[in-house]
């Protein structure tokens, strides 16, 4: 049994003007110890997917369909209380800009201890011992436990947030753009750290990023998302080197490859669709240079074109 099985997940938002289908039929699995990257540009639904799995959606959003099976239990359907216990103990999340969500008037060590006391029921002393171990794990000097957030640098704050996410030894950690806004070198440090932790603790990871070139170093699998759907799913090699979907191809070529030829990167004309009023058929067809009539009529489904490599495309997805 897989650790996490997301099946046809649909998350919709209620806006004044109508329904926004932020996530519209997302399916993927994650085994224990595996890391998957959810990659896509602004508005593709990757963060909403993460928020759906942890059930932290804002009040305008709700899960409209599908299952989120975590160790066999469907998170989409369990009660509030059960989810609260699952959160952090089994699944934790490091948010985008998490380093800014540290309480500036509380010592960093105390904030992490608070999480441990809340979820595990430990007392302060036990919690602080655990905090010390966590700090060592994320490579922060344990003397800094008694410091305040403003005394931490950006990279250190992010490590502290990772420590907080690991506080209850979760089986799955979700990182929502954990390295955006950090310098290149610090980014490398954090990604390296996540790698190390994953291997040591046999933890699974969902890495959400808009930066395709970041996932190559840390993840096993990747799902490319566009307008709420997965358009291609496969191993990192498949996505980076054997990509098939036209969007994936353009996206991969939007990043300069310093080890390749010095040629201008690609761009995709137009802009992402309005999810209040999406196009018919394949949501990417208005911007796709290979679009045929079929693309305007029916939506393509994810089809396996080679071992564990799935593509949703009429033209290149295998059937036509």
């Amino acid at each position, binding site marked *: 049994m897989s650790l996490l099985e997301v099946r046809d997940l649909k998350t919709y938002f209620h806006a004044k003007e109508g329904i926004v289908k932020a996530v519209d039929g997302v399916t993927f699995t994650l085994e224990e110890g595996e890391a998957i990257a959810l990659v896509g540009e602004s508005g593709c639904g990757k963060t909403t997917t993460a928020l759906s799995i942890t059930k932290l959606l804002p009040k305008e959003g709700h899960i409209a369909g599908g299952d989120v099976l975590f160790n066999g239990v469907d998170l989409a359907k369990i009660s509030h209380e059960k989810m609260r216990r699952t959160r952090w103990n089994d699944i934790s999340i490091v948010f985008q800009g998490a380093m800014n969500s540290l309480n500036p008037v509380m010592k960093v060590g105390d904030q992490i201890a608070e999480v441990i006391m809340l979820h595990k029921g430990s007392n302060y002393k036990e919690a602080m011992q655990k905090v010390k171990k966590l700090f060592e794990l994320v490579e922060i000097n344990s003397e800094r436990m008694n410091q305040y957030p403003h005394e931490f640098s950006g990279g250190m704050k992010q490590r502290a947030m990772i420590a907080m996410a690991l506080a209850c030894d979760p089986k799955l950690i979700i990182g929502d753009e954990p390295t955006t806004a950090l310098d290149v070198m610090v980014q490398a440090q954090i990604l390296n750290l996540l790698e190390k932790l994953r291997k040591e603790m046999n933890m699974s990871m969902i890495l959400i990023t808009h930066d395709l070139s970041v996932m190559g*170093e840390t993840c096993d699998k990747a799902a490319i998302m566009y307008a709420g759907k997965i358009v291609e799913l496969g191993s990192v090699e498949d996505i980076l080197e054997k990509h098939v979907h036209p969007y994936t191809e353009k*996206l991969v070529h*939007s*990043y300069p*490859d*310093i080890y390749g030829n010095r040629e*201008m990167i690609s761009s995709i004309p137009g802009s992402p669709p309005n999810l209040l009023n999406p196009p018919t058929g394949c949501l990417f067809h208005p911007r796709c240079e290979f679009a045929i009539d079929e693309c305007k009529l029916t939506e393509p489904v994810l089809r396996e074109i080679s071992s564990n490599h799935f593509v949703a495309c009429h033209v290149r997805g295998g059937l036509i």
Partner: protein
Amino acid sequence: MTNVIEANVVSNVIKMKENTSNVIEVKDLKVHFEGSQGFLKDFFSKEKNTVRAVDGIDFVIKKGEIVSLVGESGCGKTTTGKALLRLVHQSDGEILFKGEPILKKDRREMKLFRQKAQMIFQDPYQSLNPRNVIIDIVAEPLTVNGLISSEQEKKERVIEALENAGLKPGERFLYKYPHELSGGQRQRIVIASALILNPEFIVADEPVSMLDASIRADILKLMVEQRDEKGISYLFITHDLSLAWLISDRIAIMYLGKIVEVGDAELIAGSCLHPYSKALVSVMPVPRKIKNRERTILQGETPNPSRIPTGCRFHPRCPVAFDRCKTEEPALKEVGVGHFVACHLV
């Protein structure tokens, strides 16, 4: 798609042979800020908390060249860009624009200078006044300098500038507000307004870092086209070495207020020599899976520019530092044609 870079390299070489005048010359530029230590200390303490954002750098930009200034946050690259346009006060050194020092210019000369040297800003969501319509924003450089005589002329020149920046048809955008446009469109507006004065030099401060990857190419291509067609020189400021490698002729790598290495773009990306440059190149994300990639991940983070280490400022984090590095600051020395490195080991 044509190989834009190849064509550029060829036209560049031709241009450089024709016209090797320096548009920008920077000599020992320093920009220091007085930090505040709090009310009482400011009054009574003799020690000053100086932030040495830019601490003595030299470089030149030739006509039609794109030079990139690459570094992490706190290295001084943005401050350098602003100093070149006199948006920030330089504390020491010399900046020459077409041979003339920019500090000595009087008001009339400054006005002319500002028309010839422009800036493209990083944040397309903050660099446009949200209360103005596009036509006023793009025409502003002209109206502020008293260069338009009629409403009709204003409209025509703005439409021309918008279409040059890739926004066609120009009329559709005239009366829109910035919040009605996407990030990519806004950045084109910024570029249109920078180009409307026909400048000779542009400082582009992280022009694409806040845009989605799939729309960066258009903006970068636009910049390169302007250089090809009109010979505009660029100082391209970025933290992304791969983008710098993509479009520039030369790259200068900055660390804590100083240039540690400068040279031809391909050379820096492929065979740089300074330990910091090498580390940066080794950890740069690439869209391919490289087995057992040798990454030099430095420990710690860039120190605060108000507490710069003695000797070589990189020595505390340098994997190959030795005794001399702690006491003596290395100078930039030439190690190849147009290739300079500041390191005792080179």
